[in-house]
């Protein structure tokens, strides 16, 4: 081993200027810009968002541009395979599958968005009131939730479908009766957690009013949980609707929803598989994309997640 001598003079004290030491190199961004930047970095989430936009646009305008309406029957054209005239083929009544699928997607999305919105509204209000009031109010409200959770959703839904006329709003109601419970629990847990966090205690010590504490501390830190849960609510509502229609207690013919179409295709699966494959593909796309987007949003909305 050779020893290298380093003369004393070579050592120079590194001067760090006080200002520079406290300097932060990141550019300044608002919370929204920041979240968007992070979402953009997540390729899968951006892809999902893109696909969802296309599906929604097709659901809105697909039926408009079709040559046939979704309930037009044409008995000379039954069970036609996909072709230029009928991109997704026709069914047993010679109805245009292209029009029916986008009409079905439209109905499924309408049901899902409405149900998710109602869940959000009831769930957030219920959870927030429960957590903010605490004590007896909280205890009673928690018992209500426990009862609702105890009864299987399917039983409530089936009973409801029997007494009410089959239709979109019956399904929405059936989905919302118990659907908000999850949201309420999450919001309550989040607010309870926040209430004992030191920054909320600091706000109380500073004399900040309850109204300001809710507006400035509790809501901004709960939005992420709400948005993400709503994002996962939508695919689950779509699935439940499809399931109900599939077992025959959802929407009735000639109305179309993705579930109705899948049910229809299932009966002729061996001879005309395209009648099942196309609606199934659409439902899978919607559900997978909403889940990936929900995941991406969760990460993007959390300012601590960024590097």
């Amino acid at each position, binding site marked *: 081993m050779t020893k290298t001598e380093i003369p004393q003079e070579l050592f120079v004290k590194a001067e760090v200027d006080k*200002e520079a030491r*406290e*300097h*932060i190199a*990141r550019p*300044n961004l608002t*919370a929204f810009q920041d979240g968007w930047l992070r979402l953009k970095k997540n390729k899968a989430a951006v892809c999902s968002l893109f696909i969802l936009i296309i599906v929604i646009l097709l659901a809105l305008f697909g039926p408009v541009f079709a040559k046939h309406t979704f309930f037009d029957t044409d008995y000379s054209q039954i069970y036609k395979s996909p072709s230029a005239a009928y991109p997704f083929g026709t069914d047993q009544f010679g109805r245009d599958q292209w029009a029916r699928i986008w009409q079905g997607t439209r109905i499924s999305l309408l049901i899902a968005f409405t149900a998710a919105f109602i869940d959000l509204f009831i769930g957030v209000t219920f959870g927030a009131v429960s957590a903010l009031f605490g004590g007896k109010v909280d205890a009673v409200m928690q018992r209500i939730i426990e009862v609702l959770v105890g009864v299987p959703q399917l039983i409530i839904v089936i009973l409801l479908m029997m007494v009410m006329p089959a239709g979109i709003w019956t399904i929405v109601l059936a989905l919302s009766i118990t659907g908000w419970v999850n949201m309420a629990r999450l919001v309550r847990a989040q607010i309870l957690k926040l209430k004992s*966090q*030191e*920054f909320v*205690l*600091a*706000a*109380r*010590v*500073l*004399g*900040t*009013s309850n109204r*300001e504490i809710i507006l*400035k*501390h509790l809501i*901004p*830190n709960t939005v992420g949980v709400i948005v993400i849960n709503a994002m996962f609510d939508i695919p689950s509502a779509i699935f439940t609707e499809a399931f109900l229609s599939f077992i025959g207690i959802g929407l009735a013919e000639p109305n179309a929803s993705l579930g109705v179409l899948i049910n229809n295709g299932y009966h002729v699966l061996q001879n005309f598989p395209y009648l099942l494959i196309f609606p199934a593909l659409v439902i899978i796309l919607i559900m997978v994309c909403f889940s990936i987007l929900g995941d991406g949003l969760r990460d993007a909305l959390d*300012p*601590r997640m960024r590097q």
Partner: protein
Amino acid sequence: MPEEKVILQVKNLKRYFNVGKNQTLKAVDDVSFSIYRGETFGLVGESGCGKSTLGRTIIRLYGATGGSVRFDGADVHGKMSAAQSHELSRRMQMIFQDPYASLNPRMKVMDIIAEGIDAHHLAKSAQERAQMVVDLLEVVGLQEEHANRFPHEFSGGQRQRIGIARALAVNPDFVIADEPISALDVSIQAQVINLLKKLQEERKLTYLFIAHDLSMVKYISDRVGVMYLGSMAELAESRELFDNPLHPYTQALLSAIPLPDPDLEQSRSRVPLQGSIPSPINLPECCHFCSRCPKATEQCRKEAPKMVEVKPGHFVACHLMKSPQA
């Protein structure tokens, strides 16, 4: 000490928590002491002995189960008008332990520091508010450009200084610092302590300084109280407590601190603490330290000792102590 020198008087303060059926957790049980204007009162004790609960009850984050807290003569838990109560929240402030949990991750530093300014309407215009924040940032050694940042962009020490600036924004008289440095790197601890000391001189602040580490308390406090399982074990002037500890628990705590002189360190005797701290739930009537005390007697297991003033200003709660008059 003359009455007007006392800024905070805590008398027989109790704070119990109900945990489960018929289970009471006496987090603070019959604690009395006074804090004098302009001093730093150090409060030490093991984790879970009720230091934070005591601090939070004093500052009204928790209600008192019993006893009273008087701040400048006014009973803080008693009836008072909304305006009086609001003014009290300006005069008493708190610095928190966890620099990561004590700042709202979704607010910019500007709004975090200005929270008290807004709550008490201390600024007449947005411009004045911004200027106040910039001045406060400077006081704690940060810069103007930091005002538009989010908390997670800062280091632990910087965040703690933001927390200090937030508390100072309302010009308090009395500040409770709940383990303000225990979550920080050792190299940063001294920096924050020195800042607190400097601020105390400049702004005539009174501190209640909570810590579980005796050595830091020794450096900063004028008087020190030692807590064990919800009650005060010993209370004395800082020097007196370190030179002449009387309570067996204080002695044990002090003997656990290594001495800087290696010869002394070799030769000194240690009083090791045996066993672990018992659960504070449903404690029997006794000296709470009796399960670990090397000098415990029959009497210790039957009745709780009272605080006696052994020497002027030196209080001990232990049956072995006799007050000079008795």
